[in-house]
């Protein structure tokens, strides 16, 4: 990506990185508190400083490495698919307050710093993947993004918590930005770029597919129980359509009815547009049977 300071593209990428950093940030203060609680008072301050420093350093190093890894063909697609899952997980409501199993109380200074750095590295994998994708291959953007967001997270974590507590829509926006980043990563994948250029309409299908999977926890909350199966049916239908487009390229078959000439091609076209209906009906019937069985089991136990 060409770096043009203060252009819309540059500022947008920076904004995306900062937003992703904020919503996917790990709770470093909690980790440090848990790890350092058994250490003597005089060591605790040193652990806080070196633990924070180590965590920032490892985060910056991982983010820069991710930029180079994403340049390897195939990794952009894998990273994009992982981001879809990360966005979905971000929006899925959490049950209770869980403590991190990565943070065990340490007894030595070196052990405490090591635990903090490892815990941060493990917790930050999704974060660095997302900012690596949003940075469009620019190391400068990553460094700038981290320089802005890390101090906010480390020293202003209470401010971040206040912000997301007052405006939970920031989390939804973070999920949407992650889904958008996943879309741009998948269509930039070198293996697929030529195919997307030859089949431009599939880009829209991919975009809606990504948003329908990533944002499912959000829109499923607003659907009535009768419409809940849409959460599965909509992505499945888009995948069905996409699969025919991929099959048409892989096996050189004609799936466009305007260009179909033989009987087989017309049957294939019919299968593409109507073939999903019996499968959807079967899914709805099986789902209904499960619901009825569960309801009956619940009634029997009462």
């Amino acid at each position, binding site marked *: 990506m060409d770096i043009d300071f203060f252009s819309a593209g540059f500022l947008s990428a920076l904004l995306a990185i900062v937003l992703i950093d904020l919503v996917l940030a790990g709770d470093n203060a909690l980790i440090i508190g848990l790890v350092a609680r058994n250490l003597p008072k005089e060591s605790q301050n040193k652990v806080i400083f070196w633990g924070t420093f180590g965590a920032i350093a490892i985060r910056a190093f991982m983010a820069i490495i991710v930029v180079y890894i994403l340049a390897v063909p195939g990794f952009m697609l894998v990273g994009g698919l992982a981001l879809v899952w990360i966005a979905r997980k971000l929006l899925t*409501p959490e049950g209770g307050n869980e403590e991190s199993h990565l943070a065990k109380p340490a007894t030595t200074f070196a052990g405490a710093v090591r635990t903090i750095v490892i815990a941060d590295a493990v917790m930050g994998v999704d974060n660095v993947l997302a900012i690596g994708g949003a940075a469009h291959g620019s190391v400068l953007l990553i460094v700038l993004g981290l320089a802005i967001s890390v101090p906010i997270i480390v020293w202003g974590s209470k401010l971040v918590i206040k912000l997301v*507590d007052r405006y939970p829509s920031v989390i939804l*926006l973070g999920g949407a*930005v992650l889904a958008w980043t996943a879309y741009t990563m998948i269509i930039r994948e070198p293996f697929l770029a030529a195919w997307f250029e030859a089949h431009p309409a599939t880009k829209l299908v991919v975009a809606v597919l990504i948003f329908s999977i990533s944002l499912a926890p959000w829109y499923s*909350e607003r659907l009535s129980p009768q419409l809940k199966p849409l959460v599965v049916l909509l992505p499945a239908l888009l995948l069905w359509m996409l699969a025919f487009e991929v099959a048409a390229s892989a096996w050189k078959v004609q799936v466009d009815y305007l260009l179909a000439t033989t009987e087989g091609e017309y049957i294939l076209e019919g299968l593409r547009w109507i073939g999903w209906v019996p499968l959807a009906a079967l899914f709805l019937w099986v789902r209904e049977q499960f619901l009825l069985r569960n309801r009956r089991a619940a009634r029997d136990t009462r």
Partner: protein
Amino acid sequence: MRLIHRSPRAANAVRTVSPSGELFVASVVMCMILAAFGDAVDPTVFGELGLEYAIFDLGGEFSVLAMRHWDLLQLLLAGSVLATGIMVLRIVVGAFYQPLEPAPPQGVEKVPIKL
């Protein structure tokens, strides 16, 4: 554990989000999908169909085609404009038209809509 999970409201954002915040993010998502739609339209179509396409097009496709190169900042701005427009429309329409209320499911009315 994520930092945002320290706030119960943020951890359950899909349930606790305000209607206006939700409308804003939904508008941004709509703009993102429209931008992807602009990306999906083959620009050579204009070359093939030319004036005929331009005459019968309602302007929508042209706007969407312009969105293909939009960045996040532009999408956020467009989303906020769209959300404001929808909100104003709701207020204006609400002032002139009474929304229909469904009658209670166990009610005796023949028409299940109460004016």
